[in-house]
């Protein structure tokens, strides 16, 4: 891993936001209204115009500050599978294994973490059965064990990031 390169890429990624952008991001995270003029309702809450909410939301999405504007589905309730998985990969092989793992379309985000289990990724599949198949395929392709850690219980928190 090249630490210097990591820091440089992190610095580049920060986006500059003005006060109204921050107010909008914070105001939208609680949910988008389902009513005939939803942008106007948000605008009323945040003391903006409807046009401004539409324009800024669209721009923040284009800039990559927002990755989504719309619904986030619950995989299991839609009939799909979802799990968190980890692998223990020697440093020398890490990059090659990351590439192999990420080549599976079922792999969502994937992070290096500082532990013997040093690669952590989320698998999302069309059916629950497909999770164990994909795990088997990743193990076959990489030669390393995949530790499957599906959630057994969820303790509810509201996920918000103050902008």
């Amino acid at each position: 891993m090249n630490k210097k390169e990591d820091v440089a890429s992190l610095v580049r990624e920060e986006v500059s936001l003005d006060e109204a952008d921050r107010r909008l991001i914070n105001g939208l995270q609680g949910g988008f209204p389902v009513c005939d003029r939803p942008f106007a309702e948000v605008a009323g809450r945040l003391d903006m115009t409807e046009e401004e909410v539409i324009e800024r939301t669209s721009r923040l999405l284009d800039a990559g500050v927002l990755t989504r504007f719309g619904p986030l589905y619950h995989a299991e309730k839609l009939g799909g599978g979802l799990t968190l998985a980890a692998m223990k990969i020697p440093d020398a092989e890490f990059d090659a294994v990351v590439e192999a793992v990420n080549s599976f379309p079922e792999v969502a985000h994937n992070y290096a973490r500082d532990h013997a289990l040093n690669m952590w990724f989320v698998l999302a599949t069309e059916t629950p059965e497909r999770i164990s198949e994909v795990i088997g395929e990743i193990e076959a392709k990489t030669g390393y064990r995949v530790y499957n850690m599906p959630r057994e219980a969820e303790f509810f928190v509201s996920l918000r990031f103050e902008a």
Partner: protein
Amino acid sequence: MGLDDRDRSLVAAIADGLPFVQRPYAEIGQRIGMDEDEIMTRLQRMVADGVISRFGVVVRHHELGYRANAMVVWDIPDAQVAEIGNRFATFDFVTLCYQRPRRLPDWPYNLFCMIHGRQRDVVLEQVEVLARECGLTDVPRKVLFSGRRFKQRGARYDAKDAELTVEALS
């Protein structure tokens, strides 16, 4: 619960997000031949049923300066894990909290919580607060900060004809 064909066609129509127009639900309705009221009723039901777990924006936290992203894992006796998990969830700096299986001998931890912060030392202090307040100072735990990020998309998966984005922040 369960989705009918009209739900599925709505789900497919908004898979890539909502349109940026004054009446987004009316516009979606025009695309798939439903009226605005039906679209709104179906969306409200899917939110109420939890099929849609969040409806709104997904923030790329990294771009907002949240770089100290810690997965904090604990080895809690099984009988206490629900109580402690619910307790953790009341702290406003805890962003996600799940029970997951141990994988012995390599992985003895069964309770996972995420703290997304801007500074490492603040996050580490928050972990101390959790341990102290919940009486867990003697419980084995680890703090795994995230390093390089290789992929971040909302997990997408194919359901019939739509690629859907599902709740998948680890």
